[in-house]
């Protein structure tokens, strides 16, 4: 109700479309620009060599990452990240659905899963290293071993919380086991699953970086640590910038996918709120 009146009020007050677009543009880019200018001024007037100006960092970014380093360091990292995320999602949803649907199994595994979720994921890096040696497989397994838990546990909760009226309706219509899974259980659990995936994504990115800082001679995390150890300050900042971009890109991609998958869900919520 109020959102609706707000919107009408804004439209009648806001003037033309062009002005609104300009205002939105100013709002979204004003502060970042201001901060960059302040940073630039501060770094050019100070002697602290740990904080180079934004232009220096941008220059280092161009020199460091655009070229062979992109193929040698960035792409393999992103490939392992993607592989780890995909495996975590598949394993998490499959195992989570199974555990969520069978109550005895859930009760059997619950304390164990709580414990595994509570282990800080980076701690598993040395363990996986011990079991698998320092290989690419190890890095993917590390990512999975951390990112799978939020997806798994959220899927279990989501599957469990299927609306009882709907599941009784499904029972009385005697739909098959597969149809039940496809049209009732998974859609009902999907908001929780997406929450789990979002948490899993940030864990996966952290583990990608740490596993490379820890045990690697290539990759994004290794490069950044290498620059720091050799006091290549601007290059190190450019690496942080690149990791930030990867994080933003990951979050944006997730946002698009989530909106598609949960379009019906957001629709229902909006109707309820209005």
């Amino acid at each position, binding site marked *: *109700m109020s959102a609706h009146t707000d919107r009408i009020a804004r439209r009648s007050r806001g003037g033309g479309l062009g002005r609104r677009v300009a205002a939105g543009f100013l*709002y979204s880019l004003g502060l970042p620009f201001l901060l960059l200018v302040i940073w630039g001024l501060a770094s050019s007037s100070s002697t602290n060599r740990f904080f180079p100006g934004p232009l220096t960092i941008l220059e280092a970014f161009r020199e460091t990452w655009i070229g062979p380093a992109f193929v040698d360091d960035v792409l393999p990292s992103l490939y392992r990240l993607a592989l780890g995320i995909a495996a975590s999602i598949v394993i998490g949803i499959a195992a989570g659905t199974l555990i969520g649907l069978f109550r005895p199994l859930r009760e*059997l595994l619950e304390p164990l899963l709580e414990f595994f979720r*509570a282990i800080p994921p980076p*701690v598993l890096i040395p363990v996986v290293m*011990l079991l698998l040696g320092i290989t690419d497989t190890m890095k993917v397994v590390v990512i999975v071993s951390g990112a799978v838990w939020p997806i798994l546990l959220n899927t279990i909760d989501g599957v469990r919380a299927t609306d009882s009226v709907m599941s009784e309706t499904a029972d009385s219509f005697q739909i098959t086991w597969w149809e039940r899974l496809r049209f009732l259980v998974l859609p009902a659990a999907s908001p929780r699953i997406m929450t789990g995936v979002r948490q899993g994504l940030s864990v996966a990115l952290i583990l990608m970086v740490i596993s490379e800082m820890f045990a690697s001679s290539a990759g994004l995390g290794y490069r950044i640590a290498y620059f720091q150890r050799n006091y290549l300050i601007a290059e190190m900042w450019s690496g942080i910038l690149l990791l*930030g971009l990867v994080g933003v890109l990951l979050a944006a991609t997730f946002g698009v996918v989530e909106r598609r998958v949960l379009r019906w869900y957001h629709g229902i919520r909006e109707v309820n709120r209005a």
Partner: protein
Amino acid sequence: MHVFSIRRPRSLRKVMLGVAGLTGFLVVWQLVPTLGLINSQYLPYVTDIFARLAEEFRDLAFWRRLGHTMTSWAIGLAVATAAAVVLGTIVGLVPFLRRATHTVVEFLRPIPSVALIPLAVLLFGIQMQAALLIIIYASFWQVFVQVIYGVADVDAVARDTARSFGLTRRERLSYLVLPTALPYLMTGVRLAAAVALILAITAEMVIGNPGLGRMIELSRSAGDSVGLYAFVVVTGLLGLLVNIVFRFIERRSLSWHQSVRGEEVL
């Protein structure tokens, strides 16, 4: 009455199954190296790990390391929460600020905090401040985002009512904004507590400031696999403890709130 009669045997069964699951896991773990499926050098016997844990728990040095880890965790969490509550309330209450900071927040928040480890090392060396920088950065966003949502979630009717009753700014903050935002804040703090612990231990592993994380890294490089697994178990228990404590605090401080009361009725 009949709620109890249903619930009790079910919860007893639940506990028994849970214990069975845990025992089963430990037995399988013990059997894997016994049967030689994985060399016990890489996957040590459970019994050895328990013996090692008992030994560590009697050692004062262990508790000192635990103290280091928990100190940086507590300081980091407290600073991040305080900063996030103040800034989140201000930004959340002023629509202009909310719109203006949106891009910056959306860019800074997804930056993995571990990317800042090299910077932290440059600035502070292998001291606790380096770990604190990373802990605070990571846990700040968890609370900040929740506080912004919470403060903005004030019911429009309640807000207009408060205004027409002529409540002062201060009264509105404590009777309107705080009760609305508190559930969000508690969720944020619970998430931040878990994240802060993860980064406290990660920082010790990578940077090498004293604490449990450093012991994990030292055990690994010394080839002490029993010690490595024992410390991993300790961090898991610590994580479990933090989760339980903060869930308890959340329930206690929100005992008046629908979400908690509703659960008890059902």
